């Protein structure tokens, strides 16, 4: 009986999707995206798209053609096409499923069958995820072939995209289902789900930014600590120098300006950096706490990246993609003798600018990859389970 009813509900969901133009439009567009993906080729340092060619020094970017294809699949195929475009189409297409299901005349028939309300609702909910499941399965299967045939890398791990995408979409769809159930409105379900997604996006952006700022500030603080030690050492050297000979002359020149005031200024800078670091750490901890209770859409999708690309490879790609010399222009926080412009300042300044982007990229990668799969998926599914529990409670208690 359970198998019969579940199969019937899934079959019905397929027929419903089959009747919607957006479903097929999305499927066709998926085919076009895969075709575009397959049309990209590499030969002798050139990137070829159909008949067009452009130089692309992959090695300078820290990539092999295999990695490039994987990177392209991840960032364009998966994170852009599936996780953005297809997800938006899916939200629009599926928003009406629950309101239609509970509309008068339709729900009467469903409830009059020998199936419990909770099971009926959950099966209907699961069946609504079929849209994304079918889209992502077709896209991933085709992409797997493209990766193998064009990128010469057969990666079964790409099929992880299927469960990840379904889980990711379910985070959003549970909100759509709850709003649809409460308001019986397709438009409300669609808009609230999209707004919820936007809110999660902002929360994730805040998390990423805070990680970056925290990494910069941590770096600034560590340098400020070093600068304080350096200033104290130079002051001692200056006091001990007698100025005799070449060595004494050089020591006097190098340590010129290192007096108690310089040390005090360095200490002020260090303390300011520490304060900033503490503030950022506090805010970041709060942000992570909030994220813990909510679905982590981006991080769930990034699990595929974890599976496909190693940490070292990712660092190379991430840092090279930022370019060089485009770091922060604000140097005041990191230099103790800015008015003097001596060699120590120049050394620190140059080193910082060079490392800034690498630090940011590495910090984000390390932080995100340090978060366990259990935390990323487990807490997100916990949120979904909580929302579904509310849905089941509402659905079970309501009179139709």
């Amino acid at each position, binding site marked *: *009986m359970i198998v*019969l009813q579940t199969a*019937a509900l899934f079959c*019905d969901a397929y*027929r419903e999707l089959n009747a919607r133009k957006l479903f097929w439009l999305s499927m066709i567009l998926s085919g076009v995206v895969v075709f575009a993906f397959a049309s990209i080729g590499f030969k002798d340092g050139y990137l070829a798209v159909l008949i067009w060619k452009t130089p692309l020094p992959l090695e300078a970017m820290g990539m092999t053609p295999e990695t490039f294809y994987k990177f392209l699949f991840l960032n364009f195929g998966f994170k852009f096409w599936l996780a953005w475009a297809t997800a938006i189409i899916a939200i629009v297409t599926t928003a009406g499923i629950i309101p239609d299901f509970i509309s008068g005349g*339709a729900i*009467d028939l469903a409830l*009059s069958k020998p*199936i419990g309300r909770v099971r009926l609702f959950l099966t209907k909910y699961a069946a609504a995820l079929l849209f994304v499941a079918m889209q992502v399965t077709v896209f991933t299967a085709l992409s797997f072939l493209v990766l193998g045939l064009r990128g010469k890398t057969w990666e079964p791990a790409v099929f992880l995209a299927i469960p990840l995408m379904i889980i990711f979409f379910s985070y959003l769809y549970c909100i759509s289902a709850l709003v649809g159930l409460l308001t019986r409105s397709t438009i409300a379900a669609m808009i609230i789900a999209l707004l919820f997604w936007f809110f999660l996006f902002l929360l994730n952006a805040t998390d990423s930014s805070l990680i970056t700022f925290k990494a910069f500030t941590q770096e600034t603080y560590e340098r400020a600590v070093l600068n304080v030690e350096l200033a104290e050492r130079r002051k001692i050297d200056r006091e001990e120098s007698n100025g005799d000979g070449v060595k004494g002359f050089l020591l006097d020149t190098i340590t010129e300006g290192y007096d108690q005031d310089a040390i005090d200024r360095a200490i002020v800078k260090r303390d300011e950096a520490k304060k900033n670091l503490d503030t950022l750490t506090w805010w970041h901890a709060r942000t992570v706490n909030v994220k813990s209770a909510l679905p982590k859409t981006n991080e769930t999708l990034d699990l595929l990246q974890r599976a496909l690309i190693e940490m070292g490879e990712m660092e190379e790609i991430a840092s090279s993609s930022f370019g060089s010399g485009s770091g922060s222009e604000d140097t005041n926080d990191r230099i103790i003798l800015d008015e003097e412009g001596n060699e120590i300042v120049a050394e620190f300044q140059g080193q910082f600018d060079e490392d800034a982007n690498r630090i940011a990229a590495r910090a984000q990668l390390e932080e995100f990859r340090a978060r366990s799969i259990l935390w990323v998926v487990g807490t997100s599914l916990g949120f979904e389970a909580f929302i579904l529990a509310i849905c089941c409670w509402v659905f079970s208690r309501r009179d139709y």
Partner: protein
Amino acid sequence: MKGSIRDAHQVAPSQTIGEDPPMPASDQLVIDIDSVAKTYRGGVQALRGVELRVHPGEVFGLLGPNGAGKSTLVKILMTIVRASKCKGRMLGSAIGDKSTLTRVGYLPEHLRFPDYLTGEQVVDHFGAMAGVPKPVRRKRADELLDVVGMSEWRKTRVGQYSKGMKQRLGVAQALVNDPDLVLLDEPTDGVDPLGRKEIRGIIQRMKEQGKTVFINSHLLSELELTCDRVAIMVKGEVVQQGTIDELTAESERYEFRVSVHTEHDESVLVGSALDLTCETIEYSAGVVRTTVADIHEIQPMIDALRAKQITIHSIKPTRNSLEDLFMNAVEAGGGDPGGVRKRRRKDAKGGKR
């Protein structure tokens, strides 16, 4: 008010019960409910303690004006609405037991099928939901679509169906699990006269197959033609239930068709023969109506009329129609018979089209 509920099987044994077949025991009843109440949020009392008994193999009709609570009662039986209070059983199980629904077919009022399904797919889908295995579903779908006259449209999407076609399809899906009990909520709603006749035929066939049919309808003539027993519901309470014969027996009386072949005024002559001032005799347009149900009591009236040379064309026993019974019940219950009368006239017009 509860005390006024009258099951004709339990009262007036001198009138009809002696002629009735023995009634099944309570545990054999298909529907046996007692004190079913429903108060919606906002304090609206839809049902105020409904008692109802439906016997196996009978066609049972539930009558009532709009807002009487008929659909709420059916929805409670089908677990669509949760009762505030409910004592009773359906097919031997407690009301609300989902597993019982495998043996029940249901046609809801204002039913709505998914537009993207074809007629055949609708029957198949709801058959699967009722737990009917695929080969059986296919076979039944063929038979049932044929029975309701929808075979020709089986491959057409429901979105293109008329209301009457959807209603026929609804009847087919209600029967796909070969139910013991079929609840039909306004089965002829939106169906043309030919379709109504066909649905009556289907109901008759169900009865012949031993199924119990519960019809919820405001179409009195439909119920009169199809139902073995009826219940009248007013303002959330069943005020009367029994066979139509039982319910109308109380109103049984004799009527005379008479004429006068003299120059005398007919009404004056009849008035001189019978005492028209008493409440039991009434005369108008050649018809003498009495409230007398006993054949022996009308003999003196016949003698008196004949003594005045009044010609008696016919003497026939007559009873209230179901409509009269219904109107009286609604009026007594403080309902709105005007609305019901208007709707009945409208339905009658629709029926004649």
